[in-house]
């Protein structure tokens, strides 16, 4: 059965059941990934996934279901399950379907450059990455994790209110971890890049950074416990900020799970802190012109020079606050799950100075280049964090050695306030969740007075 036929089967059956407000969401995804070990292909993954989810609304309440089977029976089961699920819903939210009437900034995000490459080209490239990185410095013992891949994603949403939308998008990634050793204690460094074309995945730059990091880290020691002024390097700060993005969700604000409640229009950070969600950001593999409820997406400032400008809304939370949806309904866990609220590309506005100038500005302190344990050590409800960290020691504006075995701790609201300045070296950071539906970009930043535990 093709997708069109399946949609008709679902819609016919839903109408026959007397349902008025319903929506079908279809996702077609291709994933390709390769990794190398000791100059050979190690892992190869090529995959096709097709999934459908169904949403039914009655008197503002929502029932949901999903399937990966596309038969007549599956179409009926999809509707029946959603009806069953709807019976137990007690939510106070009043949800509704979007009719597709908005202004869509519709664009083609699919470039097709990755799919033009042959499998062997991609395999050669990842082998070159692994071997090249290992041969670059005699202390590098291995590249245990490396991966090159791309994803092509098609999303189709249709509902009983006339919404009918389709979008296709693609993007790729490369990452590697290098291990280096002087003898006993191995050190690690990780770096990841994303892009719309293979040319965006600069393997040389990625390898350079891993090697130069490892050279410094090989002479590492902990520092004394105390308060330090800290440069969070670009990708580390990007990942770090993603761990607190839930604070900006209107749903968390309305449910009393966010410290940003009642703070709209108020100063929550320093003037150096501007926070943006941009679904059209060009260097990101995540690009959307409608969200997962079919609402047009848009670029928006969450925080402008320290002032909280807006929360992120979907349809139901916007209705409750009597505002428009910001187009941030996202199926965080893939096509199956009901929509939650999330950003697409979270961006911290860069400053004018280079990373080296930031070192000068810091003068004495630490550079944090990697943070460990973000998924458990950063709590977006309390804002507290305590994380393992590694990086560099800075004296008189120069990097003088590596640091390991330390933790950095504090509260995110204090971090917002203590951002002194941002560099101009924006880079991608791995978001802590939903790598497929969102991305984070940040420059390196100086944050004053971070609690450090060491010796």
């Amino acid at each position, binding site marked *: 059965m093709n997708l069109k036929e399946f949609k008709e089967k679902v819609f016919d059956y839903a109408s026959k059941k007397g349902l008025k407000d319903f929506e079908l969401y279809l996702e077609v995804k291709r994933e390709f990934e390769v990794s190398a070990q000791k100059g050979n292909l190690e*892992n190869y993954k*090529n995959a096709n996934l097709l999934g459908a989810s169904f949403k039914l609304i009655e008197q503002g309440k929502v029932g949901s279901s999903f*399937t990966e089977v596309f038969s007549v029976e*599956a179409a009926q089961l999809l509707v029946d399950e959603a009806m069953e699920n709807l019976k137990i819903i*007690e939510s106070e939210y009043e949800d509704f379907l979007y009719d597709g009437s908005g202004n869509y900034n519709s664009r083609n995000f699919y470039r097709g450059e990755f799919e033009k490459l042959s499998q062997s080209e991609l395999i050669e490239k990842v082998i070159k990455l692994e071997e090249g990185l290992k041969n670059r410095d005699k202390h590098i013992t291995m590249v245990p994790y490396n991966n090159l891949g791309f994803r092509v994603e098609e999303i189709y949403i249709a509902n009983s209110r006339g919404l009918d939308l389709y979008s296709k998008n693609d993007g790729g990634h490369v990452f590697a971890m290098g291990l280096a050793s002087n003898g006993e204690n191995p050190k690690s460094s990780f770096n990841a890049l994303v892009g719309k074309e293979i040319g965006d995945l600069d393997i040389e730059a990625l390898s350079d950074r891993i090697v130069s990091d490892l050279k410094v880290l090989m002479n590492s020691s902990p520092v004394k416990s105390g308060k330090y002024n800290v440069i969070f390097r670009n990708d580390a700060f990007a990942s770090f900020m993603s761990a607190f993005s839930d604070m900006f969700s209107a749903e968390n604000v309305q449910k009393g799970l966010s410290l940003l409640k009642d703070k709209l229009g108020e100063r929550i950070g320093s003037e150096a802190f501007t926070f943006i969600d941009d679904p059209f950001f060009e260097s990101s593999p995540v690009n959307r012109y409608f969200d997962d409820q079919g609402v047009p997406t848009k670029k928006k400032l969450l925080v402008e020079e320290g002032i909280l400008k807006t929360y992120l809304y979907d349809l139901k939370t916007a209705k409750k606050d009597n505002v428009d949806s910001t187009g941030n309904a996202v199926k965080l866990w893939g096509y199956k799950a009901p929509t939650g609220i999330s950003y697409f590309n979270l961006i911290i506005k860069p400053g004018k100075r280079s990373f080296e100038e930031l070192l000068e500005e810091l003068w004495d302190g630490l550079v944090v280049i990697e943070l*460990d344990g973000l998924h458990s*050590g950063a709590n977006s409800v309390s804002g507290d964090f305590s994380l393992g960290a590694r990086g560099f020691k800075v004296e008189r504006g120069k990097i003088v050695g590596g640091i390991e075995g*330390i933790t950095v701790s504090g509260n995110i609201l204090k971090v917002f306030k203590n951002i002194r300045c941002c560099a101009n070296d924006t880079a991608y950071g791995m978001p802590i969740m939903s790598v497929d539906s969102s991305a984070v970009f940040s420059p390196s930043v100086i944050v004053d007075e971070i609690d450090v*535990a060491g010796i």
Partner: protein
Amino acid sequence: MIAEHIIEAMLVELLKKGAEFADIFVEERNSNNISMTGGKVETALSGKSFGVGVRATIGVRSIYAYTNELTENALMAVVEGIGDILNSRPKRNVRMSFEERKNENRHLFILEPASVNKADKVKIMKMASEGARNVSKLITQVLVNYFDYDQRVWIYNSEGLKTFDRRLRTRLMIEAVATKPGEKETGFYGPGAAMGFEFYNTFDVYEAGQKAARIAVRMIDAEYAPAGKMPVVISNGFGGVIFHEACGHALEATSVAKGASVFAGKLGQKVAADCVSAVDDGTIPNAWGSANIDDEGTPTRRNVLIENGILKSYLVDKFNGRKMDMESTGSARRQDYRYAPTSRMSNTFILPGEYYPEEIIASTEYGLYAKSMGGGSVIPGTGEFNFSVREGYLIEKGRITKPVRGAKLIGKGSEVLWKIDMVGNDLARAQGICGSSSGSITADVGQPTIRVSELVVGGRNK
């Protein structure tokens, strides 16, 4: 289901194309997920997943593809694609036939989740939510998540194996939020099992809600933990996350086979203090991380990992086992058909020692008592691990004196195992979700109360 002659044709074709080994994983899964906020059901989702994962290995290469387009043409196209990558000399006269191995089900269940009314599931959630809410006025929000799934897997391989397993999982996750002006703290409790709905007759659900809320209430009044190196007493149950992160991941063949583990080449050597013995046991009836067979079809078993400080075994899957010249330990696992299987933990825990937990605290002059733990992570190549303390207390002069919050514990796996100097007699296990290269899987962690003579505690400076 997929007709057996198609599966057979796929495997034969893979062997003809030069695969040394090939296997096919067919998975059907029905799942339910209900979430509740403030005592009201917010979302309810259910559905069916169905897909096929196909793997061929040759030398050090593993080639994996999956699809949920289940026509013969689509499946043979997947095989063709893998054949191109194998790039090996074709073989002739390949024959195979399946011999089915039936597995005894050690994880009996009574109430299939599908047969239970959704309203009954909601009742359980409400009970937990009320339990949490009624603990204190400081509790301002309670989130409850219920989920169950019923997974059926059919595993076939080029050695002629055909086998089946059915796995049920049920879990309740409770998060409570305590609030004071400008401050919030959370508490969490999430019991689960490889059981049907009868799981909720095995413990007091109201009390489970109270457990989550009490953590939040104690922590909102707590000072921040001190920063620096100190002795740490880690409570039983979820405290076992320290062994899981500090040691367990580095014993997985995924890292060991390529030498990317600090424990590579150390079998038979002393890697921990005498008082440390640990096992990984996928056979425990109805335990969260158990199954009758692993995701390559090998029966699960009890593997002694460390005995009196000596490294006895790794966790091995078939593919990495061939690289290491070792047999599978029944440890191949994956989240679902979208992931190639690899060696993972199941139910992993430190075995009990001789001390009463009270003795351990009484003999500690100054340090941290980590009563309830959050998650953690590790870099197997360097052994650097971290995990969060959800509920902590200060120990002063052998007594627990006051609650402290916000602590992270960090260290190196190879070092911390030597620093365990007391092991209690109160072994308990707790449920977690472990994320790694083959996706997120159910895993029990466990231990008795233990003491680590020195760890870096990430807290705040006075």
